[in-house]
């Protein structure tokens, strides 16, 4: 397939990112915009825009038929879905195919299998990957109690159709199981239209480590190393880094191998991420899930490998073989990414959309900023609150961290509240600099955030 014109079916920083990759590849871009995004930065960067609907995402960015009709209408050969919205909708990917449009991502059946967490667990286990002790679908609280007794408390309740932390609940006491089960099922039903819940052992001292892989349609798979995304708030990543700090060479090798094996076994095509939970006390890892899209935190991998993942996505989608063997992929230095969102850290991270009056990011050769913001931009209230991703690279973790601290200190934003003060606090905390991280660190630090930070 020769790609010529791409419909960029997303918004915000990732739309800017995809347009930039298209330019490098000589591809024409058409950006889908809702009424709220007509004047956005990516709208100005794209070769043309097409207005797909009102601000509400359900009537614009989340409507598969509207997006495919837009691609047909502007004669685009391919759709890049970015992340979020329709990026992991197997039905959307199939609809693209039905209208002869290349979906820049894996095949629909691969999205579908990994989209159901229970199916993904079964597939991983079948291919010999370690999975957390857990259950199949639980129908009753009695069934859940039996499983909890078998695998031991605490347990995590998870939505089979889940993502983005919704429908997930930690149960520490048996008498909480029944009410939490009801709450998790209700949350899952409203978020995903599917209230299937299962149980998994909960690892208290855990790290979240994920492996970036690329696979082509000829069955070749390579990994681009791993990222540590342990710093999370409500199961949403806040800070990511690559490579994962403070793990043994053997553990690192085994995690990377496990990810490649899973992708090879399923003939995975395009960019994907295999997520693992690392039990720091037991020094072992478990398969968590696989994300069948480009991820928010992909720049840290790009920073240490020098490979442009979005460009690779287009090459793979066009049917080209991977240009790299595993040995060609070299890792250099250390990278950290901070997600800057329009939220108020002192008010429970309440979203704070509005007009940005000053936007002065730091600039240096080792700094990358992926953002759609500028002074004068009105952050709409209709979408997620991500303003940008600040990425720094250094020769080692210590240098990367000191560069991140410096970059955050120099970043000035006015007009809206941001998480910059919180990020400065976290990046300056001795637990992070010592690599003493786990998935609860951010929640712990929120309570220690000094009142006066600005």
């Amino acid at each position, binding site marked *: 397939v020769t790609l010529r014109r791409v419909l960029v079916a997303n918004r915000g920083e990732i739309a800017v990112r995809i347009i930039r990759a298209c330019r490098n590849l000589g591809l024409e871009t058409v950006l889908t915009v809702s009424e709220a995004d007509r004047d956005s930065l990516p709208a100005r960067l794209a070769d043309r825009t097409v*207005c797909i609907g009102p601000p509400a995402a359900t009537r614009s960015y989340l409507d598969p*038929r*509207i997006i*495919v*009709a837009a691609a047909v209408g502007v004669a685009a050969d391919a759709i890049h879905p970015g992340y979020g919205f329709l990026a992991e909708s197997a039905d959307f990917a199939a609809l693209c195919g039905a*209208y002869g449009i290349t979906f820049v991502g894996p095949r629909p059946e691969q999205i579908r299998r990994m989209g159901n967490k229970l199916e993904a667990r079964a597939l991983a286990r079948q291919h010999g990957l370690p999975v957390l002790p857990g259950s199949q679908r639980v129908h009753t609280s009695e069934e859940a109690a039996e499983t909890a007794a078998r695998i031991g408390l605490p347990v995590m309740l998870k939505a089979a159709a889940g993502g983005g932390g919704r429908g997930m609940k930690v149960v520490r006491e048996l008498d909480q199981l029944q009410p939490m089960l009801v709450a998790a099922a209700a949350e899952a039903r409203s978020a995903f239209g599917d209230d299937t819940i299962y149980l998994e052992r909960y690892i208290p001292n855990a790290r979240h480590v994920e492996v970036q892989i690329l696979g082509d349609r000829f069955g070749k798979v390579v990994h681009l190393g791993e990222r540590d995304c342990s710093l999370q708030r409500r199961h949403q990543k806040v800070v990511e880094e690559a490579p994962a700090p403070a793990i043994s060479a053997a553990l690192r090798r085994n995690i990377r191998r496990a990810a490649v094996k899973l992708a090879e076994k399923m003939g995975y095509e395009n960019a994907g991420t295999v997520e693992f939970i690392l039990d720091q006390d037991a020094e072992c890892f478990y398969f968590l899930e696989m994300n069948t899209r480009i991820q928010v935190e992909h720049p840290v991998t790009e920073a240490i490998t020098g490979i442009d993942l979005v460009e690779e996505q287009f090459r793979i989608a066009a049917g080209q073989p991977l240009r790299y063997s595993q040995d060609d992929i070299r890792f250099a230095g250390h990278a950290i990414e901070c997600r800057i969102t329009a939220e108020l850290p002192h008010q429970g991270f309440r979203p704070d959309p509005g007009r940005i009056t000053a936007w002065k990011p730091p600039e240096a050769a080792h700094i990358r900023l992926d953002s759609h913001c500028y002074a004068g931009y009105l952050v709409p*209230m209709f979408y997620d609150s991500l303003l940008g991703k600040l990425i720094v690279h250094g020769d080692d973790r210590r240098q990367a961290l000191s560069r991140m601290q410096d970059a955050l200190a120099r970043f000035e934003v006015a007009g809206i509240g941001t998480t910059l003060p919180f990020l400065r606090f976290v990046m300056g905390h001795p637990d992070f600099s010592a690599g003493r991280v786990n998935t609860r660190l951010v929640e712990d630090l929120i309570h220690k955030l000094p009142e006066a930070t600005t």
Partner: protein
Amino acid sequence: MTQDPTQEDIREILQAFELSAYAHLELTVGPVQLAADRAAALPPASSPAATACVAAPLLGVFQTAAEPGAPALVELGAVVKPDTVVGFIRTLDQSTAVVAGVDGTVVDLPVPDGQFVEFGQTLLRISPSAMAAVASGRPDQRGTSP
């Protein structure tokens, strides 16, 4: 019982206003009075003779006839009522009827049959009849911007 608007509510109202086609906003809810002007707004409809624009209610291919080969549903100079079907939007394999939305006379048909249109794109302009102009006063159609 109405609750007094919170800061969040006001922010939402102002954002909706920013995205609207209106130039001026005045609002009183309980003890809160709100007035705002939008510098970038289009000049307000100044005369009752202003035309009403019929905007595409969704994205797709505009069809001026009920089926291929059939005569166009409306021609220039046609007199329409609010519920007169003036065309269809075909989105993949589904068709959606577009109605005039106003009493008046068709004065412009800028989109030819079979053309792809975006959400909110002007499909036709209608000069409202005198009675309708008095009743509506301001354009109440979506997509009055060019």
